[in-house]
C-alpha cells in the first residue's frame, strides 16, 4: 500500500520532460549515454572548426541532395526540351539534362536547392582539405591518431569521387567533356584500360549507361561509405578525446575546454546553422554550374576555358604539364606515358599523404601518445615538407587554369605551361627551404623572447649616457606556450646485435638526420633563471 502512495506522489511531482525521459530510459538505458558524454570536454580553437565545416556541409549536401533526387531523372534517353529556358527550346537532349533544366527553371526554389547542393559540395571538399592541412601541420596525426588520419584521408578521396560523379550527372557539355577526359585517361592505362572503359560506359563512349551508373554511385554507394567513415572518424575522436594546443595547465594527461552540454552543443549546433546559412547565401547570390549556358552534351563542340570543379583541378593540371611525345609503341602495344606518368604522380602523391604518419612514427621511434599539438614552427622539417606538398599541389592546380591564366594576364599559353613545369619541380624545393628557415627563425625568436623577454618600446638613458631598450619578461603562463614542445634528436647509426648496420637502419638514420638535424635545444629551467639577469 505504501508503494502505491509513493508512486502517486512522485508522479504528481514529475514534469512532462521527466516522464518522457523516464519512458525512453526504461526502454533504451540512454541515461548511461548522457552520463558518459553529456559533460564530455571539448577544447576550443578556431582551427578545430574546419572539420566541423566539413561535417556540416555534408549534412547540407544530404538534405539538398534528397530533394534533388525527387526531380532528377538519371537517364540518357533522348527527349526534346520544352521547358522555360528559351535558348534550348526544341533541342534534343538526354532526360538527365532535361530534368536538371526543369529543376533549375520550372520548379520554384529548385535552382536555389541545386546551387546550395553544388556550393556545399565545393565547400565540403575544401574544408576537408584545410582540415587535413591543420592536422598535418600541428602533428595531430601522431599516436594514437594514425588510423584516424587514414580514415580522414579516405574521406577526402571519397569526397572527390562524390563530387565528380555528381558533377557528371546533368549530362551537360562541360561535364560530358570531363567524362570524355576520364575515358581517355582510362584507355591509356596499360593492359586493362580499354576494357575498363568499355565496361564503365557499357560499350563505346559515351553510350547511354554512364549517367545511370554514376547516379547509383553518387546517391547510394558513395554516400553510404562517406556516412560509415564519418561515423568511424567521430567514434575515434571520442575514444581519443580531442587534441589541444599547448597552454598553461594543459598536459598530455588532461583535456580542458567546455562541456558538450550546454556550451559545446550550443556552439557546434549554432555553427551548423552558420555554415548552412553561409552556403544558402552563396547559393542565393552566386550562380554555380550554369548548365543552361553549356547546353547538352555533344562530342563535337567545346568551349574555350573548360575547367573542372576545383578539387579535380590538380589531376587535370597534371595532365596538362606533360611535355609532348611521351608515348610510344613497344611490343606491339601503345605505352601512353603521357597518361601513365601523371596518374602515377597523383597516386604516389596521395599515398605519401596517406602514409606520412607511419613514416614519421617509424623514424622517431616515439611510442608515446601525443595529445598536445605541435606549433608548426617547432617541427621545422615537417612544416617544410608540408609547404613543399602544398606548393606541388598548388602548381598542379594552377596548371588546370593555364589557358585562363594566359588569356587573363596576356601571357603566352606555352610560357605559362613551361613556367608551371619548372615550378612543379623547383617550387616545392624553394618552398621547403624558405619554410624551414622561417620556422627555425621563429624558434629562435621564441627562444629569445622566452629567455630575455620582449621589447617593451621603452628607451631608458643610463647615468653613463648609454641608451637601452627595456625588455619586459613574459609571465609564466605566456612563457609556457613558447617552451613546452617535443623535440627529437637525430638517430645515431650503430651496429645491431650481430654487428651489422642494415640498410633499413641506414635509411632510418638518414631520415632522422633529415627531419631533426637542424633544431634548437629546448629551453631549460636553468636557462630561464640565468637568462633573467641579462637585461
Amino acid at each position, binding site marked *: 500500500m505504501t508503494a502505491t502512495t509513493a508512486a502517486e506522489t512522485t508522479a504528481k511531482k514529475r514534469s512532462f520532460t521527466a516522464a518522457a525521459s523516464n519512458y525512453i530510459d526504461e526502454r533504451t538505458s540512454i541515461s548511461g549515454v548522457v552520463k558518459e558524454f553529456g559533460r564530455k570536454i571539448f577544447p576550443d580553437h578556431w582551427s578545430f572548426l574546419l572539420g566541423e565545416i566539413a561535417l556540416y556541409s555534408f549534412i547540407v549536401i544530404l538534405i539538398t541532395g534528397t530533394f534533388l533526387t525527387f526531380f532528377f531523372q538519371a537517364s540518357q534517353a533522348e527527349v526534346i526540351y520544352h521547358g*522555360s529556358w528559351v535558348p534550348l527550346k526544341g533541342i534534343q537532349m538526354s532526360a538527365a539534362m532535361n530534368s536538371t533544366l526543369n529543376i533549375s527553371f520550372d520548379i520554384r*526554389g529548385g535552382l536555389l536547392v541545386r546551387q546550395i547542393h553544388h556550393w556545399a559540395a565545393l565547400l565540403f571538399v575544401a574544408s576537408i582539405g584545410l582540415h587535413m592541412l591543420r592536422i598535418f601541420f600541428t602533428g595531430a596525426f601522431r599516436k594514437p591518431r594514425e588510423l584516424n588520419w587514414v580514415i580522414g584521408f579516405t574521406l577526402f578521396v571519397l569526397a572527390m569521387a562524390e563530387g565528380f560523379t555528381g558533377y557528371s550527372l546533368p549530362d551537360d557539355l562541360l561535364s560530358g567533356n570531363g567524362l570524355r577526359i576520364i575515358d581517355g585517361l582510362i584507355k591509356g592505362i596499360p593492359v586493362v*584500360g580499354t576494357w575498363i572503359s568499355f565496361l564503365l560506359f557499357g560499350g563505346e563512349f559515351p553510350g547511354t549507361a554512364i549517367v545511370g551508373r554514376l547516379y547509383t554511385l553518387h546517391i547510394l554507394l558513395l554516400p553510404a561509405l562517406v556516412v560509415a567513415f564519418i561515423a568511424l572518424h567521430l567514434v575515434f575522436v571520442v575514444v581519443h578525446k580531442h587534441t589541444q594546443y599547448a597552454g598553461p595547465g594543459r598536459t598530455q594527461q588532461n583535456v580542458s575546454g567546455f562541456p558538450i552540454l550546454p556550451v559545446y552543443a550550443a556552439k557546434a549546433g549554432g555553427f551548423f546553422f552558420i555554415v548552412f*546559412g553561409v552556403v544558402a547565401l552563396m547559393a542565393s547570390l552566386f550562380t554555380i554550374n550554369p548548365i543552361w549556358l553549356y547546353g547538352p552534351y555533344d562530342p563535337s563542340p567545346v568551349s574555350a576555358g573548360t575547367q573542372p570543379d576545383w578539387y579535380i583541378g590538380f589531376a*587535370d593540371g597534371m*595532365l596538362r604539364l606533360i611535355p609532348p611525345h611521351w608515348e610510344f609503341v613497344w611490343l606491339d602495344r601503345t605505352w601512353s606515358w603521357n597518361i601513365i606518368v601523371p596518374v602515377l604522380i597523383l597516386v604516389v602523391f596521395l599515398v605519401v599523404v596517406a602514409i606520412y604518419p607511419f613514416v614519421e612514427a617509424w623514424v622517431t*621511434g616515439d611510442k*608515446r601518445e601525443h595529445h598536445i599539438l605541435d606549433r608548426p614552427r617547432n617541427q621545422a622539417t615537417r612544416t617544410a615538407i608540408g609547404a613543399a606538398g602544398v606548393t606541388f599541389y598548388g602548381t598542379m592546380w594552377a596548371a588546370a587554369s593555364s589557358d585562363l591564366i594566359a588569356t587573363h594576364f596576356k601571357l603566352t599559353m606555352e610560357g605559362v605551361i613551361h613556367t608551371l613545369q619548372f615550378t612543379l619541380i623547383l617550387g616545392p624545393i624553394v618552398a621547403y627551404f624558405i619554410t624551414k628557415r622561417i620556422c627555425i627563425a621563429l624558434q629562435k625568436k621564441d627562444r629569445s623572447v622566452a629567455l630575455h623577454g620582449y621589447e617593451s618600446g621603452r628607451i631608458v638613458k643610463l647615468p653613463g649616457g648609454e641608451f637601452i631598450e627595456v625588455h619586459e619578461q613574459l609571465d609564466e603562463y605566456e612563457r609556457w606556450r613558447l617552451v613546452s614542445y617535443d623535440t627529437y634528436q637525430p638517430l645515431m647509426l650503430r651496429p645491431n646485435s650481430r654487428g651489422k648496420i642494415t640498410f633499413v637502419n641506414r635509411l632510418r638514420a638518414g631520415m632522422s638526420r633529415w627531419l631533426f638535424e637542424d633544431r634548437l635545444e629546448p629551453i*631549460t629551467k636553468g636557462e630561464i633563471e640565468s637568462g633573467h639577469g641579462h637585461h
Partner: protein
Amino acid sequence: MAQDDNGGTEITPAASSAVDHRPGDAGTAVIVQDAVENPGFPPHRARITDKDPRKQRRAERTIYTLFYLSIVGSIWAIAAYIAFPIESGKISDLRISTLAIGLGMTLALLAIGFGAVHWAKALMVDKEGIDIRHPVQGTDETRERAVEIFQEADAESGFGRRTLIRNSLIGALVAFPLPAIVLFRGLGPMNEDPVKLLSHTMWKKGMRLTRDPSGTPIRASDVTLGSVFHVIPEGLNDKEDALDQKAKAAVLLMRLEPKDLHPSPDRKSWAYDGIVAYSKICTHVGCPVALYEQQTHHLLCPCHQSQFDITHEARVIFGPANRPLPQLPIEVDADGYLVAQSDFHEPVGPSFWERH
C-alpha cells in the same frame, strides 16, 4: 645523439623524466631533465556579461531578437515562394524568386546560428572543465582477458589445430565472391570487341561531308580560303547511336593555300585543292580540338592545350598529345560535293593499349 637502433631497448629516457608520465618508449625524443614546469591553469577572467548586469540583459535581448528574426526569415522564405512565380519563363522572375527564397532561408539559418553561439559565449556559464585522459589501450586485465578469450575460442573450435578444416574454409571464402566479380562482365556488351569498335568510324568511300549539326552537304566551292567547317558524316543524325558515332567521326575541314601544305608522298592525294579534313578528336584524351588559329594554321585543344600544325599533317607542336590528328582522305564527287575517299587509316581519338 639518440641511440635507438636496437628498438630503443637500451635507453629508457621517458622513465627518468620528471615531467612526462606517458607510457611507452620515447624513441629519439629529447627528454629534458631540467624542463620548465607547467605553471597550471591561469586564474579565471570574468566576462563583461558576468560583471555588468546591463551587458548581460543586452546580450539576452540580442539573442532572442536573433531567434525571432529567424522566424521572420522562415516566413519570408515561404511568402517569397508564393509571391514570386517563375512560370512566366522570364529569367528575371527566376532570379527574384531564387534570391528572395534564398535570402529568407539565409536569415532564418544565420540568425539561429549567431544566436546560439552568442548565447553560449556570452551567457552560458563560462567555466572550463577538465577531463582526465587515460591511455587508449585497454587495461592490462582487459587485454589479458581478450587474449584468453581468443585462446579459449581457438581451443574450443580447434581453429588452429584442425588445419584442414580451417584452410579449406579460407579457400572457400576466397572463392565465393568470384562469381559476383564475373557477373560484372555484363556491364559491357557481350559480342563486341572494343578494339575493333575503336579502330573504325562510320566514314566510308563516297560518304558526303556534311555540316555539324545541320547535316547539309558541303561543296568544295563553299569552303573559302581560311575558313573552317565542323563536319559530320552524312546520315549521322539518323543513327540510333548518333553520339557514339559522332564521338569518333567528328571532323574539322579547313582550306589553306595548297603551297602551305606539306603532305608526305603517300598523302598527296588526300587533300582537294588545299582543303584538308582532320579528326576533331584529340589524340591525348579525346576532347574536341575545336580552336583553329587562322594565321598560323594551328589547331588547339581547349582541354589540355595540345597544339597541332595543319601545314604539317597535324603534327603535335605543343602539349601532352603524342600523335598527329588522323587525316580523313577526301575528294569531290560528280556534283561538286566533298566526300570521303575511305575511313580513317588509323584509329581516331585517345590512345589505347591494343593500338599499334
